[in-house]
């Protein structure tokens, strides 16, 4: 992270006093014990207590805090529920941590327009809870949905197991109210489907808290499907499981969820929750179909036929809702189940073209041997989003560093085969320095100038996403060398 600004640290008391004048009472936290809960997010390998925490509860307070910090040149890190797995909400030693947890109200629900308007601190699951009585739900379902907030989902463009069919957050958000770093309050999008001009909402979603602070979100809600049924399919190898996934999609079937686990993950999950997983298989697929009953039943049969054609060793379909949930229980417990295998695990998040899966897993096994650390694999098979779980022991000197190097090697491999660094967790601080693996300096400069258009002084959540902090004035200059590009023939995708 950038070196703390000593001049700012020296003004800490004045900054705390100014914040207290804007947000009264106990909503400004400056004692060490109170700061500690905020020192990291879901990526606990990185820790840094903030200079001060402020917990506003109105848009006017957020605007006043940002306006004051902007005028004083003080950095601000926004935070939702703090469940980011990429360090998106990692505080700065010389920065104000702006916690949005008090924005926890559902403001409006309109079933005719199929929208819910909520404050950003409302949890993902609470949106569904607010509309389920009327038969609706909010589709994106990150696995942290019981805790993660909608504001954080928008900032990170969160996904979930159902996003192959229902999309990521960006496909389910219609409008936001935001506060810019200079205190301006703007509305992007609305309750209608298309924006009036540039799709600024589109670039705000997934901007990891670098462009603006979100104070209100309008999401699309959907009628709950009539039925959901799942299949649990065991394969003798990842190749046949991968081919089964490709064949399902080629048959025109888009499952609501399609998850794969490798042998290590299957055994850990089974030992942890006794979901009834077969233990004699190399790869396990959970395929869930949802929709009208008249659709689910025949498609379950169709998927079963496809599975057998691909050499499935076992295939069970859920006969009841309880059984369907049991199929999922193992997958959902896969992360905590790693605790049986190693004291710590490090979760990666690359995406690859699915057809490269067998090769990627083979090379991952080689990397595992080279780094001397185990790896278990669970992934969203439908969209090629891998979650390798690297097993290590933080108490053994050097293992954390090796786990991080192993992780970086896996992500480089993902990019090499035509994939990307992160499918749903975000870049944050974690993958920041790997961005040049995927993007050239020119590519990154085009992104950073968007940052400059929102926050020219680079005060909002600096140090995340981009490996180098260029000043906006420097990025704004235009150099034209007779239209010549350094390597015009280089394939650049």
């Amino acid at each position, binding site marked *: 992270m950038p070196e703390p600004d000593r001049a700012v640290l020296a003004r800490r008391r004045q900054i705390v006093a100014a914040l207290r004048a804007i947000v009264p009472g106990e909503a400004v936290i400056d004692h060490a014990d109170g700061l500690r809960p905020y020192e990291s997010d879901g990526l606990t390998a990185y820790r840094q207590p903030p200079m001060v925490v402020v917990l506003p509860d109105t848009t006017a307070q957020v605007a006043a805090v940002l306006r004051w910090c902007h005028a004083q040149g003080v950095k601000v890190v926004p935070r939702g529920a703090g469940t980011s797995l990429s360090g998106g909400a990692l505080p700065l030693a010389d920065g104000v941590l702006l916690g949005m947890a008090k924005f926890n109200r559902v403001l409006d629900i309109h079933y005719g327009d199929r929208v819910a308007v909520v404050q950003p601190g409302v949890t993902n699951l609470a949106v569904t809870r607010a509309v389920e009585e009327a038969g609706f739900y909010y589709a994106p379902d990150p696995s942290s949905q019981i805790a993660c907030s909608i504001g954080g989902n928008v900032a990170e463009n969160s996904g979930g197991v159902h996003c192959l069919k229902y999309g990521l957050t960006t496909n389910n958000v219609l409008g936001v109210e935001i506060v810019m770093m200079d205190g301006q309050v703007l509305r992007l999008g609305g309750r209608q489907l298309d924006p009036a001009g540039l799709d600024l909402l*589109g670039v705000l979603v997934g901007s990891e808290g670098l462009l603006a602070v979100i104070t209100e979100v309008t999401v699309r809600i959907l*009628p709950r499907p009539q039925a959901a049924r799942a299949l649990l399919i065991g394969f003798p190898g990842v190749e046949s499981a991968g081919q089964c996934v490709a064949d399902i999609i080629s048959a025109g079937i888009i499952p609501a969820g399609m998850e794969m686990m490798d042998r290590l993950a299957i055994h850990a999950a089974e030992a942890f929750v006794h979901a009834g997983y077969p233990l004699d298989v190399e790869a396990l697929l959970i395929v869930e179909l949802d929709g009208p009953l008249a659709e689910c039943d025949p498609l379950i049969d169709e998927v079963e036929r496809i599975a057998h054609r691909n050499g499935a060793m076992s295939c069970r379909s859920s006969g009841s809702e309880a059984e369907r949930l049991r199929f999922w229980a193992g997958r959902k417990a896969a992360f905590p189940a790693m605790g049986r295998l190693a004291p710590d695990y490090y979760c990666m998040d690359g995406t690859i073209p699915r057809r490269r899966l067998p090769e990627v897993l083979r090379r991952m096994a080689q990397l595992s041997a080279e780094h001397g650390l185990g790896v278990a694999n669970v992934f969203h098979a439908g969209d090629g989003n891998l979650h390798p779980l690297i097993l290590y022991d933080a108490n053994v000197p050097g293992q954390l560093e090796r786990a991080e190097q192993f992780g970086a090697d896996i992500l480089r491999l993902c990019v090499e085969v035509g994939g990307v660094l992160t499918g749903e967790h975000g870049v944050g601080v974690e993958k920041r320095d790997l*961005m040049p693996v995927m993007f050239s300096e020119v590519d990154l400069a085009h992104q950073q100038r968007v940052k400059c258009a929102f926050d020219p002084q680079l005060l909002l959540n600096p140090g995340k996403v981009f490996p180098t902090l260029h000043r906006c004035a420097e990025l704004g200059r235009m150099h034209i060398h007779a239209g010549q590009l350094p390597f015009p023939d280089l394939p650049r995708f």
Partner: protein
Amino acid sequence: MATGRMQTDPMETGDVRRPGSVPELAALIAEAARSGARLELRGGGSKAAFGAPVHGALRVDMGGFAGLIDYDPAELVLTAGAATPLHEIEALLAGERQMLAFEPFDCAPILGAAAGRSTIGGVIASGLAGSRRLSRGSVRDHLLGFEAVSGRAEAFVAGGKVVKNVTGYDLPKLLCGSWGRLAALTRVTLKVVPAGRAQATQVLHGLDPGQAMQAMALAMGSQAEVSAAAHCPASPHGVRACTALRVEGFAPSVAARCAALQSALQAFGSVETLPEPEAGAFWSGLRTLAPLQDCAVLWRVNVPPSRGPAVIAALEPVGARWLFDWAGGLVWLGFDGDPSAVRAAAASAGGHAMLVRAPEALRARVPALQPLPAGVAALEERIRRAFDPQGVFETGRFG
């Protein structure tokens, strides 16, 4: 893909450049930035009659960036040159029983351009989607990545070639609907999806705008997974008002969902299945705006669906003709009266109005896109200058 016809088309006059490679395109943009010239990016020209008439800009024919690059149906991903004709992509996808879920809106029929001229780059630059946008998202929801040359004369990429990606800012969203004002797209990667194996259209007759909106809302809120919902009012020639709901998917599922719709919508009258070829004609008529074809001025009004009837209530009494798509959230208006009345009606309904077809004189006077609140407009302007500091792509088409 030869686009030699550009030179013979009577609409095409003036200087035209046709770069054949990314370095040539970058050199052209660099030269324009140095000389202060303006560049009008042109794909197939199907939307040439959109926006204010352009004078004095150097036309850039993007036809050199055409052709399929990669398509793997099982990956649900397609990469093509930006100038690849839309109909070629749609035919290729249809051969694999896949489709572009957003059902691209073809402006050619209403803007007087020859059929089949739309390019995929033009579809992205306009961001205009058709009837299925209601259920499956728009162009912006399906552009995964791109390569382009910005107004800085620099080739750059954004996004990726996989269906799930959050690496870096989502610039593909920003390029959709940017109308060529940020960068010249050269190559695009799209998410494609399986096409429904069967489809059926259920219709209700004789509803007024408010009833139609309510019937469509009920259908969209049901478990019938309606893919498109539109309403055409009674025509002066005595054709009854028709509210149409399209259901797509596997045949047994389509049948079950149609039956569910019929019982759910009983209160609105008898629900009938519109047989083919009438059903096909209804939706393709919507795609070409056939019911409003004789209106000289066409507006595309985007509002929350429940407010569609309010727009009609404000403008029908002063002579507007109309139809609903997107369950009432998209109001197409044929109205040659006061443009400010349309913009005011759209704004008070919580939305905005786009001027799509109009005589040149009106387009010169009235901006195509609804003016934005000052703060958002200023932010947009800063974004434009970030990609195009010299205003190379500012041809005056958008004021």
